[in-house]
Protein backbone atom coordinates (compact mmCIF):
# COMPACT_ATOMS: atom_id res chain seq x y z
CA UNK A 1 0.00 0.00 0.00
CA UNK A 2 1.56 3.33 -1.01
CA UNK A 3 2.43 5.61 1.89
CA UNK A 4 2.44 8.93 0.01
CA UNK A 5 -1.23 9.79 0.48
CA UNK A 6 -2.36 13.27 1.51
CA UNK A 7 -3.16 13.77 5.22
CA UNK A 8 -6.81 13.64 6.31
CA UNK A 9 -9.15 15.03 8.96
CA UNK A 10 -8.83 12.44 11.79
CA UNK A 11 -12.53 12.77 12.59
CA UNK A 12 -13.42 11.22 9.21
CA UNK A 13 -12.21 7.69 10.06
CA UNK A 14 -13.81 7.94 13.50
CA UNK A 15 -17.15 8.82 11.90
CA UNK A 16 -16.74 5.88 9.50
CA UNK A 17 -15.84 3.55 12.38
CA UNK A 18 -19.07 4.60 14.11
CA UNK A 19 -21.14 3.68 11.04
CA UNK A 20 -19.26 0.38 10.81
CA UNK A 21 -19.76 -0.35 14.53
CA UNK A 22 -23.55 0.10 14.22
CA UNK A 23 -23.67 -2.14 11.12
CA UNK A 24 -21.61 -4.81 12.93
CA UNK A 25 -24.03 -4.72 15.88
CA UNK A 26 -26.95 -5.26 13.46
CA UNK A 27 -25.00 -8.10 11.84
CA UNK A 28 -24.32 -9.68 15.23
CA UNK A 29 -28.03 -9.45 16.08
CA UNK A 30 -28.90 -11.25 12.83
CA UNK A 31 -26.33 -13.98 13.53
CA UNK A 32 -27.52 -14.48 17.13
CA UNK A 33 -31.22 -14.68 16.20
CA UNK A 34 -30.69 -17.36 13.57
CA UNK A 35 -30.82 -15.15 10.45
CA UNK A 36 -27.53 -16.70 9.31
CA UNK A 37 -27.92 -15.91 5.60
CA UNK A 38 -28.72 -12.25 6.21
CA UNK A 39 -25.75 -12.07 8.62
CA UNK A 40 -23.37 -13.41 5.94
CA UNK A 41 -24.73 -11.00 3.31
CA UNK A 42 -24.43 -7.94 5.58
CA UNK A 43 -20.96 -8.95 6.78
CA UNK A 44 -19.88 -9.42 3.15
CA UNK A 45 -21.06 -5.86 2.43
CA UNK A 46 -19.15 -4.53 5.48
CA UNK A 47 -16.09 -6.49 4.33
CA UNK A 48 -16.36 -5.01 0.82
CA UNK A 49 -16.35 -1.46 2.27
CA UNK A 50 -13.28 -2.35 4.38
CA UNK A 51 -11.59 -3.63 1.19
CA UNK A 52 -12.38 -0.34 -0.53
CA UNK A 53 -10.79 1.63 2.31
CA UNK A 54 -7.77 -0.67 2.53
CA UNK A 55 -6.93 -0.85 -1.17
CA UNK A 56 -8.15 2.50 -2.51
CA UNK A 57 -6.90 4.31 0.61
CA UNK A 58 -8.79 6.00 3.45
CA UNK A 59 -8.99 9.23 1.43
CA UNK A 60 -11.37 7.54 -1.06
CA UNK A 61 -13.46 5.74 1.55
CA UNK A 62 -17.25 6.00 0.91
CA UNK A 63 -17.97 6.88 4.57
CA UNK A 64 -15.23 9.49 4.30
CA UNK A 65 -17.14 11.01 1.37
CA UNK A 66 -20.31 11.04 3.53
CA UNK A 67 -18.33 12.70 6.30
CA UNK A 68 -16.98 15.43 4.01
CA UNK A 69 -20.38 16.04 2.39
CA UNK A 70 -22.67 16.06 5.43
CA UNK A 71 -20.69 16.15 8.71
CA UNK A 72 -17.54 18.20 8.22
CA UNK A 73 -19.36 21.37 7.05
CA UNK A 74 -21.08 21.42 10.49
CA UNK A 75 -17.81 21.09 12.44
CA UNK A 76 -15.00 23.48 13.25
CA UNK A 77 -11.78 22.94 11.26
CA UNK A 78 -9.70 20.04 12.61
CA UNK A 79 -7.06 20.85 15.25
CA UNK A 80 -4.56 18.90 13.19
CA UNK A 81 -4.49 16.58 10.21
CA UNK A 82 -3.54 12.92 10.43
CA UNK A 83 -1.42 10.71 8.19
CA UNK A 84 -3.50 8.47 5.92
CA UNK A 85 -1.39 5.35 6.57
CA UNK A 86 -2.70 4.40 10.07
CA UNK A 87 -6.44 4.43 9.26
CA UNK A 88 -5.75 2.76 5.91
CA UNK A 89 -3.93 -0.02 7.78
CA UNK A 90 -6.88 -0.25 10.21
CA UNK A 91 -9.19 -0.78 7.22
CA UNK A 92 -6.96 -3.69 6.19
CA UNK A 93 -7.27 -5.25 9.66
CA UNK A 94 -11.07 -4.88 9.46
CA UNK A 95 -11.04 -6.41 5.99
CA UNK A 96 -9.15 -9.53 7.13
CA UNK A 97 -11.31 -10.09 10.25
CA UNK A 98 -14.63 -9.64 8.44
CA UNK A 99 -13.42 -11.74 5.48
CA UNK A 100 -12.70 -14.59 7.92
CA UNK A 101 -16.20 -14.05 9.33
CA UNK A 102 -17.77 -14.27 5.86
CA UNK A 103 -15.86 -17.49 5.12
CA UNK A 104 -16.99 -18.93 8.48
CA UNK A 105 -20.59 -18.00 7.67
CA UNK A 106 -20.41 -19.57 4.21
CA UNK A 107 -19.13 -22.79 5.83
CA UNK A 108 -22.13 -22.72 8.17
CA UNK A 109 -20.12 -21.74 11.28
CA UNK A 110 -22.46 -18.91 12.31
CA UNK A 111 -21.04 -19.01 15.85
CA UNK A 112 -17.55 -18.24 14.59
CA UNK A 113 -18.98 -15.51 12.35
CA UNK A 114 -20.59 -13.98 15.46
CA UNK A 115 -17.29 -14.08 17.39
CA UNK A 116 -15.40 -12.37 14.54
CA UNK A 117 -18.15 -9.77 14.04
CA UNK A 118 -18.03 -9.06 17.81
CA UNK A 119 -14.24 -8.63 17.63
CA UNK A 120 -14.56 -6.26 14.67
CA UNK A 121 -17.29 -4.36 16.55
CA UNK A 122 -15.05 -3.86 19.62
CA UNK A 123 -12.23 -2.55 17.41
CA UNK A 124 -14.54 -0.19 15.48
CA UNK A 125 -16.25 0.99 18.68
CA UNK A 126 -12.94 1.75 20.45
CA UNK A 127 -11.73 3.61 17.37
CA UNK A 128 -14.92 5.65 17.01
CA UNK A 129 -15.67 6.49 20.66
CA UNK A 130 -12.19 6.59 22.21
CA UNK A 131 -9.93 7.18 19.21
CA UNK A 132 -8.10 4.03 20.27
CA UNK A 133 -6.55 1.93 17.50
CA UNK A 134 -6.59 -1.79 18.36
CA UNK A 135 -5.14 -2.67 14.95
CA UNK A 136 -2.13 -0.40 15.60
CA UNK A 137 -1.41 -2.36 18.75
CA UNK A 138 -1.74 -5.61 16.80
CA UNK A 139 0.77 -4.21 14.30
CA UNK A 140 3.50 -3.97 16.96
CA UNK A 141 2.79 -7.52 18.15
CA UNK A 142 2.88 -8.84 14.55
CA UNK A 143 6.17 -6.97 14.06
CA UNK A 144 7.67 -8.60 17.15
CA UNK A 145 6.41 -12.02 16.05
CA UNK A 146 8.24 -11.28 12.74
CA UNK A 147 4.97 -11.84 10.85
CA UNK A 148 5.48 -8.31 9.53
CA UNK A 149 9.05 -8.18 8.19
CA UNK A 150 11.41 -5.19 8.43
CA UNK A 151 11.12 -2.88 5.43
Amino acid sequence: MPADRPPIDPRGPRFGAGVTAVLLLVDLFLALTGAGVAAVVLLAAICAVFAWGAFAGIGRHPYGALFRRFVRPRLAPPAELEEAAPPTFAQGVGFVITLLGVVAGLLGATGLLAVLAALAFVAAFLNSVFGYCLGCRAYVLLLRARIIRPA
Partner: protein
Amino acid sequence: MSPVAALALLAALVLLATAVGLVQRARAGRLRSASGTVTAADLGVDAPLGARASLVQFSTPTCAQCPGTARLLSGLAADHPGVVHLEVDLTRHPDVADRFGVLQTPTTLLVDAGRAVRARIGGAPRRDALEHELRTVLGGPDAR
Protein backbone atom coordinates in the same frame (compact mmCIF):
# COMPACT_ATOMS: atom_id res chain seq x y z
CA MET B 1 -31.46 -17.29 20.60
CA SER B 2 -34.51 -15.10 21.28
CA PRO B 3 -34.34 -11.45 20.15
CA VAL B 4 -34.46 -10.30 23.79
CA ALA B 5 -31.50 -12.51 24.76
CA ALA B 6 -29.61 -11.34 21.66
CA LEU B 7 -30.19 -7.68 22.56
CA ALA B 8 -29.02 -8.35 26.13
CA LEU B 9 -25.84 -9.91 24.76
CA LEU B 10 -25.28 -6.91 22.46
CA ALA B 11 -25.75 -4.53 25.40
CA ALA B 12 -23.20 -6.53 27.41
CA LEU B 13 -20.76 -6.31 24.50
CA VAL B 14 -21.17 -2.53 24.27
CA LEU B 15 -20.60 -2.24 28.04
CA LEU B 16 -17.50 -4.43 27.83
CA ALA B 17 -16.06 -2.35 24.98
CA THR B 18 -16.82 0.85 26.92
CA ALA B 19 -15.03 -0.53 30.00
CA VAL B 20 -11.98 -1.47 27.88
CA GLY B 21 -11.96 2.01 26.37
CA LEU B 22 -12.20 3.76 29.75
CA VAL B 23 -9.41 1.65 31.28
CA GLN B 24 -7.23 2.26 28.24
CA ARG B 25 -7.87 6.01 28.35
CA ALA B 26 -7.02 6.16 32.07
CA ARG B 27 -3.73 4.30 31.54
CA ALA B 28 -2.55 5.90 28.29
CA GLY B 29 0.14 8.57 28.49
CA ARG B 30 0.99 8.02 32.17
CA LEU B 31 4.58 8.04 33.34
CA ARG B 32 5.70 4.73 34.81
CA SER B 33 8.95 4.09 36.63
CA ALA B 34 11.48 2.15 34.59
CA SER B 35 15.00 0.82 34.92
CA GLY B 36 17.92 -0.19 32.71
CA THR B 37 20.28 1.78 30.52
CA VAL B 38 20.25 2.83 26.88
CA THR B 39 22.99 3.46 24.33
CA ALA B 40 22.63 4.78 20.78
CA ALA B 41 23.75 1.34 19.56
CA ASP B 42 20.84 -0.28 21.48
CA LEU B 43 18.47 1.93 19.52
CA GLY B 44 20.01 1.30 16.11
CA VAL B 45 20.35 5.05 15.50
CA ASP B 46 23.37 7.05 14.38
CA ALA B 47 22.44 10.22 16.27
CA PRO B 48 23.99 10.63 19.74
CA LEU B 49 21.91 10.75 22.90
CA GLY B 50 21.41 14.09 24.60
CA ALA B 51 24.12 15.52 26.87
CA ARG B 52 21.64 16.12 29.71
CA ALA B 53 18.63 13.95 28.82
CA SER B 54 16.99 12.14 25.91
CA LEU B 55 13.38 11.55 24.90
CA VAL B 56 13.44 8.25 23.01
CA GLN B 57 10.28 7.58 21.02
CA PHE B 58 9.43 4.19 19.51
CA SER B 59 7.12 4.58 16.49
CA THR B 60 5.54 2.64 13.65
CA PRO B 61 4.24 3.99 10.32
CA THR B 62 0.69 2.81 11.12
CA CYS B 63 0.52 4.60 14.47
CA ALA B 64 -2.02 7.43 14.55
CA GLN B 65 -0.61 9.18 17.64
CA CYS B 66 3.08 8.97 16.71
CA PRO B 67 3.32 12.18 14.62
CA GLY B 68 1.63 14.25 17.35
CA THR B 69 3.89 12.68 19.99
CA ALA B 70 6.94 13.48 17.85
CA ARG B 71 5.87 17.15 17.72
CA LEU B 72 5.33 17.22 21.49
CA LEU B 73 8.70 15.63 22.27
CA SER B 74 10.72 17.66 19.78
CA GLY B 75 9.07 20.78 21.23
CA LEU B 76 10.14 19.75 24.75
CA ALA B 77 13.66 19.04 23.50
CA ALA B 78 13.81 22.48 21.87
CA ASP B 79 12.70 24.13 25.12
CA HIS B 80 15.40 22.45 27.22
CA PRO B 81 19.06 22.79 26.12
CA GLY B 82 20.99 19.51 26.14
CA VAL B 83 17.82 17.47 25.62
CA VAL B 84 17.47 15.43 22.43
CA HIS B 85 14.42 13.78 20.88
CA LEU B 86 15.21 10.49 19.11
CA GLU B 87 12.55 8.65 17.12
CA VAL B 88 13.10 4.96 16.31
CA ASP B 89 10.97 3.31 13.59
CA LEU B 90 10.35 -0.20 14.94
CA THR B 91 9.42 -1.45 11.47
CA ARG B 92 13.09 -1.06 10.56
CA HIS B 93 14.37 -2.21 13.96
CA PRO B 94 12.12 -4.99 15.33
CA ASP B 95 15.06 -6.18 17.48
CA VAL B 96 14.83 -2.85 19.34
CA ALA B 97 11.14 -3.58 20.06
CA ASP B 98 12.19 -6.94 21.55
CA ARG B 99 15.04 -5.44 23.59
CA PHE B 100 12.79 -2.85 25.21
CA GLY B 101 9.66 -5.03 25.35
CA VAL B 102 7.58 -2.54 23.36
CA LEU B 103 3.91 -3.57 23.16
CA GLN B 104 2.43 -0.37 21.75
CA THR B 105 3.42 2.74 19.82
CA PRO B 106 4.17 5.43 20.64
CA THR B 107 6.24 4.30 23.63
CA THR B 108 8.56 6.95 25.08
CA LEU B 109 11.60 6.53 27.35
CA LEU B 110 12.97 9.39 29.40
CA VAL B 111 16.74 8.80 29.61
CA ASP B 112 19.06 10.83 31.85
CA ALA B 113 22.63 12.05 31.24
CA GLY B 114 24.02 8.79 32.67
CA ARG B 115 22.00 6.83 30.04
CA ALA B 116 19.69 5.42 32.72
CA VAL B 117 15.99 5.04 31.86
CA ARG B 118 14.09 7.17 34.37
CA ALA B 119 10.51 6.85 33.09
CA ARG B 120 8.50 5.07 30.43
CA ILE B 121 5.26 6.19 28.79
CA GLY B 122 2.89 4.05 26.71
CA GLY B 123 0.64 6.05 24.37
CA ALA B 124 0.66 9.79 23.72
CA PRO B 125 2.47 11.40 26.71
CA ARG B 126 0.74 13.87 29.03
CA ARG B 127 2.84 16.97 28.52
CA ASP B 128 2.68 18.45 32.04
CA ALA B 129 3.63 15.22 33.82
CA LEU B 130 6.45 14.53 31.37
CA GLU B 131 7.85 18.05 31.56
CA HIS B 132 7.78 17.88 35.37
CA GLU B 133 9.74 14.62 35.35
CA LEU B 134 12.14 16.00 32.74
CA ARG B 135 12.89 18.99 34.97
CA THR B 136 13.54 16.61 37.86
CA VAL B 137 15.98 14.63 35.73
CA LEU B 138 17.72 17.80 34.51
CA GLY B 139 18.00 19.07 38.08
CA GLY B 140 20.04 16.05 39.06
CA PRO B 141 19.45 13.63 41.95
CA ASP B 142 19.47 16.45 44.52
CA ALA B 143 16.36 18.01 43.03
CA ARG B 144 14.26 14.91 43.63
